[in-house]
């Protein structure tokens, strides 16, 4: 079990990351509000456009933060500067994992909650809720996958490759879900129908996300050097 040798420094590193992405996050937040406003115009075209933009925004936030906060740190020689600070490789790794998760999970949760609120409050069938939740969890899982790649390899190439693969898989995942009778037959239900299939998929998605994060944490912990 890892013990934080320098929690104050970890906190400072997280704060440093927050300062670095503050402007980007403010832009995403403004974008999120505008997309919600677009969906709030309550026409089918604007609603669907808003839903697609919302998914895009979730992907973009994840991709940008993984590249900006992890990969670029090595490319811009910031990592070499970090090595001169009184922090261990583990401290640095924990700070990176913590900052990235925090900076992604907060907007992710807000956007998912926003979408669910739109569905609950609009004439859209509540039956689509399981689909929306499953797709959102898949996007979170994808993010964790390329964050793990970025943290473990610091390679732009590998991280971009995982991003491309997970984004391609997202389309396949949505089509796969829509072909499942347990999912598509309940899409037009007035209430969210969580059946054994959708619950199993949700559990699998959450489980895989936790597994990816734990594996990343364990592998990070074993690192003996920054590089």
């Amino acid at each position, binding site marked *: 079990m890892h013990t934080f040798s320098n929690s104050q420094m970890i906190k400072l590193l997280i704060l440093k990351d927050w300062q670095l992405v503050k402007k980007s996050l*403010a832009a995403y*937040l403004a974008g999120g*509000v*505008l997309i919600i*406003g677009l*969906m*709030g*115009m309550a026409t089918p075209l604007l609603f669907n456009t808003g839903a697609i933009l919302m998914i895009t925004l979730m992907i973009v936030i994840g991709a940008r933060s993984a590249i900006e906060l992890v990969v670029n740190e090595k490319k811009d020689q910031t990592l070499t500067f970090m090595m001169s600070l009184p922090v261990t490789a583990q401290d640095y790794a924990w700070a990176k994992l913590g900052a990235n998760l925090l900076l992604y999970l907060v907007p992710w949760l807000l956007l998912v909650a926003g979408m669910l609120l739109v569905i609950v*409050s609009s004439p859209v069938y509540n039956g689509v809720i399981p689909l929306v939740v499953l797709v959102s969890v898949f996007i979170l899982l994808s993010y964790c996958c390329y964050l793990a790649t970025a943290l473990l390899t610091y390679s732009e190439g590998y991280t971009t490759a995982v991003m491309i693969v997970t984004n391609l898989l997202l389309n396949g995942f949505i089509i796969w879900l829509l072909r499942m009778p347990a999912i598509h037959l309940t899409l037009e239900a007035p209430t969210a129908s969580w059946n054994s299939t959708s619950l199993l998929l949700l559990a699998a998605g959450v489980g895989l996300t936790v597994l990816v994060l734990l594996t990343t944490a364990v592998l990070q912990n074993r690192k003996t050097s920054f590089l």
Partner: protein
Amino acid sequence: MQQSPGRFYYLDNLRAFAMLSGVLFHAALAYSPKAQGFWLSADPQQHALFDVFAWASHLFRMPLFFFLAGFFTALLWQKAGGVAFAKNRLLRVALPLLLFLPLLTLAMHGVLQFGLATVQQPSALLQLIKPMLTAEAPAELPLSTMHLWFLYHLLFFYVLTYCARTLLSDALQARLLALPPWLLLLLLVLLLLPPLSLVPAPVPAPEWIFPALWALWFYGLFFACGYVVFRHADALSRYSADRRVLLGLGAISYLVFYQLLPADLRAQQPQGWTKLLIIVCEASGALCWTLAALLYGQRYLNRSNPVLRYLSGVSYWVYLVHIPLLFLVQFGMTDLLWPAGVKFLVAVLVTLSGCLLSFHLLVKPTLLGKIVAPAAARV
């Protein structure tokens, strides 16, 4: 140049008047011929004067509110800092919204049931929802923020303010303010046109549980203007000499706007060039009258006296609770053969009395007073 935060009496007073004029506006809609098709408490007794008054006040009352909200946002942020600002707004805006939305929804449901049971000459809307509410399995009415949409949208504007403060530099404000005053006004009118083109005229209340893009854009511009005026005091004062012109321009805009409105607002809205003319008049009327209200307020209301201070203190509470009470009173009078003017006066007086009575019984002596009327609690 930034102003030092002091007491802006005329803005407090204008806010109180705007909030109280909301009661008059909502009361007037029941006797407005144009609103007969969509107003719940629409009365068989009507008079066109109520239309003239209601739509004139509607043109600039909410824009003025958002302007003031933007101004006080800048003031509070500067005075207290971001974290204290967020805490203050959560307490003063988010908490009342969360607290009163379910309570008012329940109250409105009760008032509707009263109206359905007692009113012999129900309004078109009441007739429409009657089968929905009296069926064995009553249909769910769409989720609505009711008149609290103002608070709801304010929360989004606070988020956008944070974004703008993070992303935009003050240089943008300075560049805009460097424009000649009348060119800046023209630019603002042009910026107001797209959101107005998306909705029927006069602008509806964006009371759906989701904020609408047009409302964020339209009211957001007024909010932004208020924010900028706090930071650049001369932005408003350079229009001081033109306040009569602004009042006149607003009146001409309103006159044309009113003439072009359909007799029944539920009817098909004008299209094409007529629609363009309507929204140009709506935008210029809203802007000119909002500015005129601020300039006249600055000149004649910039003082503190006990009555204005009292009105300012109670206005938030009155705004929160007046709608169910007003509908209750108006439903009670619908079948009476009194003239519309008398009904209007009775409705306003009884509603205001009820609001003030409840303020002194339920708000001022309790914790609620610290949330919705901290100034009045101090008085």
